[in-house]
């Protein structure tokens, strides 16, 4: 910490005196009860309870600790994290290690421990070749990796001594960081304090008057809805000699040592007259300092927390009781020590611009990767600040083995940026890029103090390196532009140059995240120079408490050692950082002085670029012997299986206001329908498309609100297959406003189309009103479930007024798009593969509004059909219109509305469903003449399964119809259990079929 010049001088004032008080946080008991489940199984997550002897479930919060024991308050059977509680049940974290039995004692502590959180991966019950991911057993993916979240900082846990009856704690959210830079709202709750809460980012002083152990909660909500909560423990005590509720009275600490190598601090404590210490309990040291005659404390990395000397946790494996001495000895470590002993699950995440799965992360950089891991794979952030120092870079993948929580993120920053994770004395986490990885290590940092002979005791120890440790280092990595643009550059550099120096080892470092070649050259030069620097380490016992120094964040000091200071007669004047600090506490003399090992930092000369050969083949020295490949045996392309439309099993429907339902036995007499609505908003459902593999896209209107002009915006969600969770692919807020200016307006989604024969292809037409009632622009977005982007910077200007409805279909000739021209005439056009250009524009002269084009059941000829209360129009290729003149209509019935329309494989047979209980009308000649079908109910959706088999849906019903236009027409009710799983009347908006993987095998 950088002190003011006056405070820096004060910190050197002698004699210095420090009195330490030791606090051990004692969590409150929230609830006590008994297991009420005779026959309970090992590993049970949902546990019934009764016989509540203390408290109530209403005080239980997500993340609290549950002790399970054979006696009240005991934890001899185990301890678990609570997910939720009800009047009769606890829902707990996964726990195969707990041997449950009836009447075990359960004790809920107001304590939020550091736990690993396991993901769960299950086989998709509807598709055994695929899996479904959950976090923490049953949290499905919705949009968590898109909205991301916030590193919430609230400082360390707090030890407090009452002074004249009042203890003061300063609260600030300093260092809080939202990964998307969203605006934040704050909600503090100060248990036991005055005031009891605050909505300020920095509430300032909170006052406590009653000794006790309290919990402060801070919930931060980002503007995009991401919510993060963190807790801090506050232990308020009387001063020793001034009351009965005091810190630990009789205790000793031999040393408190911290180093960047160990990533934090640890110290061994012995407590007397204490009969029990909880594993993982919070241990805090509060300092009372004098510098000469000035009573003040200095240092620390958090505002107004100078007195907090150390915050750590009891290492569960280190507790030893000495019953003869009536003492207990344990080691307290920084949070990193607990993280090292806590094993997490393996993780693999990929950067995506629009993630829609748990293993995709929005435009990933290291901070986002670490947040994802700490937030969803651990509870570290529930009790710990997290700070980032240094340049961050985009990365495409983050993979971690099944390793400790600490190693997972430390290895990431160590191997990617040359950095490390450490905890400071007050228990805050720091992820830092090493100074040597900065472009100019010695010029970047302003030293926090200059250390000269008055600052050390006795004589410093200086490491002197005569020969180079490193003769050559080769460093390489990737510069990745991020998921949006997705470009890569591979770079390699060698230092000191292409020729090594004469002594030392050779090292190779690869896999770094880089900015480019020049940055890498400087990095390789810095790494080589820092390995070979003269006087790399200096150790000294300090003459002053130096509490302004810590191992984290990395603080640069300038050390000046004059020739007369040492027998070696050398001059050293360079930059160092504290590498390790050991504090020795002499309680009898009230002396707390450190010995510090400093590690030097130098700036190197840039290394040389190593050109990565495009072709590694070098035939100048070696020639492969000639050989011939044997001829491949002749083979034939497999014949694609044609689905028998009468045996279609897998069908998806979109039900108005109820969402998506599917069945895998549509061919049975009574299909079993299931919901597929996990994480899918179920209001304003507009359309659904399903690929033949079952990938689904759903268009939802208005879920992201509207812009200032009332334009509907809308969203696209996607699910990997029926039954899988939905994830957000697109909404208008993601794309900004390309016409930003005087009249910024949002997009409306005009139409959505997919390639049903590709697994994952999506084309969206986003409409934008530019000039009200005069100009309407269309922007194509092309991509897949991982995200879409505008395909070019040129919009399609169809200059149609107020017309928002368009339809897309994909035929052999490409995308067909129907819309209205500026005269409100139904029109059609072709779009290029990614929608970036429009051609073959045809306008129907007949005049109609509200056009629609069917979506084809198979990819054959195109047939475009436009309709609304006026003649329908059909063409054979989507651009050449026929039968469109005057009253020579294919089909028209005044006053009725076509609810849906579909054509068969060659476009010759067209089927329309009509409202007003008039059933089906169909044409067998491209719409030249029309026939009334035998089905007479209201039809809200039609679909073509193949040949002469169709699906038709109405209000509260689903049917298949075979043999349309034949004497053997068969209509079969396929409603099955739909009426049982949907409460009340319902209306089916769309129907699609697909082939589940079981059927494909």
């Amino acid at each position, binding site marked *: 910490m950088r002190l003011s010049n006056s405070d820096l001088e004060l910190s050197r004032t*002698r*004699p*210095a*005196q420090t009195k330490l008080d030791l606090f051990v946080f004692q969590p409150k008991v929230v609830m006590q009860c008994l297991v009420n489940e005779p026959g309970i199984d090992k590993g049970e997550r949902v546990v019934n309870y009764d016989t509540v002897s203390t408290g109530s479930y209403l005080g239980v919060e997500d993340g609290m600790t549950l002790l399970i024991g054979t006696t009240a308050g005991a934890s001899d059977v185990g301890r678990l994290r609570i997910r939720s509680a009800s009047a009769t049940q606890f829902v707990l974290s996964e726990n195969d290690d707990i041997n449950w039995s009836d009447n075990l004692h359960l004790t809920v502590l107001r304590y939020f421990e550091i736990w690993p959180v396991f993901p769960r991966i299950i086989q998709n019950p509807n598709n055994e070749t695929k899996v479904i991911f959950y976090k923490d057993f049953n949290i499905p993916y919705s949009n968590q990796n898109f909205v991301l979240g916030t590193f919430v900082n609230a400082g360390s846990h707090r030890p407090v001594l009452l002074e004249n009856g009042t203890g003061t704690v300063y609260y600030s959210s300093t260092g809080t960081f939202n990964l998307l830079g969203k605006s934040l709202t704050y909600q503090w709750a100060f248990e036991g304090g005055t005031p009891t809460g605050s909505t300020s980012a920095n509430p300032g002083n909170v006052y406590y008057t009653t000794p006790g152990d309290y919990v402060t909660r801070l919930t931060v909500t980002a503007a995009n809805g991401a919510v993060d909560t963190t807790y801090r423990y506050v232990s308020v005590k009387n001063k*020793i*000699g001034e009351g009965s509720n*005091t810190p630990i*009275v*009789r205790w000793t600490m031999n040393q408190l040592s911290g180093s960047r190598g160990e990533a934090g601090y640890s110290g061994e404590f012995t407590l007397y007259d204490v009969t029990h210490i909880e594993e993982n309990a919070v241990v805090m040291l509060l300092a009372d300092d*004098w510098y000469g005659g000035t009573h003040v404390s200095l240092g620390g990395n958090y505002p107004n927390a100078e007195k907090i000397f150390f915050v750590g946790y009891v290492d569960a494996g280190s507790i030893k009781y000495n019953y003869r001495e009536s003492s207990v000895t344990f080691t307290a470590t920084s949070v990193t020590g607990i993280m090292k002993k806590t094993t997490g699950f393996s993780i693999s995440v990929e950067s995506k611009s629009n993630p829609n799965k748990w293993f995709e992360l929005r435009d990933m950089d290291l901070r986002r990767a670490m947040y994802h891991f700490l937030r969803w794979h651990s509870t570290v952030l529930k009790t710990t600040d997290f700070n980032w120092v240094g340049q961050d870079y985009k990365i495409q993948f983050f993979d971690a083995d099944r390793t400790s929580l600490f190693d997972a993120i430390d290895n990431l920053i160590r191997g990617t940026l040359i950095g490390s994770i450490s905890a400071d004395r007050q228990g805050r986490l720091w992820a830092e890029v090493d100074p040597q990885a900065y472009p100019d290590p010695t010029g970047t940092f302003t030293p926090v103090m200059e250390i*000269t*002979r*008055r*600052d*050390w*005791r*006795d*004589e410093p120890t200086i490491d002197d390196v005569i020969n180079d440790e490193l003769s050559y280092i080769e460093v390489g990595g990737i510069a990745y532009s991020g998921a949006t643009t997705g470009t890569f550059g591979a770079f390699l550099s060698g230092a000191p140059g292409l020729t090594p120096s004469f002594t030392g080892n050779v090292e190779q470092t690869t896999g770094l995240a880089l900015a480019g070649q020049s940055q890498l050259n400087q990095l390789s030069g810095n790494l080589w120079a820092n390995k070979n620097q003269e006087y790399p380490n200096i150790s000294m*016992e300090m*003459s002053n408490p130096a509490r302004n120094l810590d191992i984290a964040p990395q603080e640069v000091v300038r050390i000046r050692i004059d020739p007369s*200071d040492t027998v070696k007669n050398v001059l050293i004047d360079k930059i160092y950082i504290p590498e390790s600090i050991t504090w020795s506490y*002499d309680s*009898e*003399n*009230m*002396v707390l*002085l450190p010995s510090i090992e400093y590690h030097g930092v130098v700036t190197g000369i840039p290394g040389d670029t190593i050109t990565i050969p495009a072709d590694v083949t070098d035939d100048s020295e070696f020639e492969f012997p000639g050989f011939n490949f044997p001829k491949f045996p002749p083979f034939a392309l497999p014949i694609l299986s044609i689905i028998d439309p009468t045996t279609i099993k897998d069908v998806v429907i979109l039900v108005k206001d109820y969402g998506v339902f599917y069945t895998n036995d549509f061919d049975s007499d009574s299909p079993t329908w299931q919901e597929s609505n996990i994480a899918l908003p179920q209001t304003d459902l507009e359309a659904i498309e399903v690929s033949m593999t079952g990938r689904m896209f759903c268009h939802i209107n208005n879920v992201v609100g509207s812009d200032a002009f009332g334009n509907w915006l809308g969203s696209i969600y996607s699910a990997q297959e029926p039954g899988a969770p939905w994830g957000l692919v697109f909404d208008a807020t993601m794309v900004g406003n390309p016409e930003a200016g005087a009249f910024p307006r949002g997009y409306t989604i005009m139409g959505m189309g997919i390639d049903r024969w590709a697994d994952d292809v999506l084309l969206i037409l986003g409409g934008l009103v530019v000039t009200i009632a005069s100009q309407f622009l269309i922007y194509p977005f092309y991509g897949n479930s991982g995200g879409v982007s505008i395909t070019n910077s040129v919009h399609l200007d169809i200059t149609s007024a107020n017309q928002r409805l368009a339809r897309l279909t994909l035929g052999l000739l490409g995308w067909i798009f129907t819309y209205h021209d500026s005269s409100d005439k139904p029109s059609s056009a072709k779009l290029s593969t990614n929608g970036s250009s429009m051609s073959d524009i045809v306008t129907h002269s007949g005049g109609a509004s509200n056009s629609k084009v069917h979506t084809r059941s198979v990819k054959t000829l195109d047939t475009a059909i436009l309709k609304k209360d006026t003649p329908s129009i059909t063409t054979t290729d989507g651009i050449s219109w026929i039968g469109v003149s005057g009253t020579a209509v294919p089909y028209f019935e005044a006053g009725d509305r076509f609810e849906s329309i579909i054509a068969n494989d060659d476009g010759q047979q067209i089927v329309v469903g009509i409202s007003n209980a008039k059933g089906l009308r169909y044409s067998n000649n491209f719409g030249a003449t029309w026939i009334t079908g035998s089905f007479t109910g209201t039809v809200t959706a039609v679909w073509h399964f193949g040949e002469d088999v169709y699906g038709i849906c109405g209000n509260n019903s689903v049917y298949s119809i075979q043999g349309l236009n034949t004497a053997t027409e068969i209509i079969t009710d396929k409603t099955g259990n739909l009426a049982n799983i949907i409460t009340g009347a319902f209306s089916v908006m769309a129907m699609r079929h697909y082939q589940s993987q079981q059927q494909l095998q």
Partner: protein
Amino acid sequence: MQGASGTYAINSTRFILQPTEGEWDSREILGVDGNGHPIYPAVREFHITWGLAHPNDVKQLIDTYNALGNTGTAVFDLPKWGDADYIFYSYSGCTMREPEVGAYFNGYISNVRLTLMKVRT
């Protein structure tokens, strides 16, 4: 603060028998800085001895020590450190070691020593 008692006292209670001698102990040197200056702790110790003390007086000292227990501190009136005159000064926030005693001699206890600690001068 000027010692109110003007003589040796613990929490304003004077000793019935004045000590044979009282002495500021030398502070332990924690080290020498690079300029050659010694570094001392901030607190000192003072010891008081009685060549012979009545067991009842010694008991009072032991009672005082026990009363401080593990948590208490006391105010000692001691000759003021570093002052030009022999005056007494009240030092607060101090602790003491358990009284050390020598052999019994004719119903008295010889070589009674009381060490006062954590005296901020």
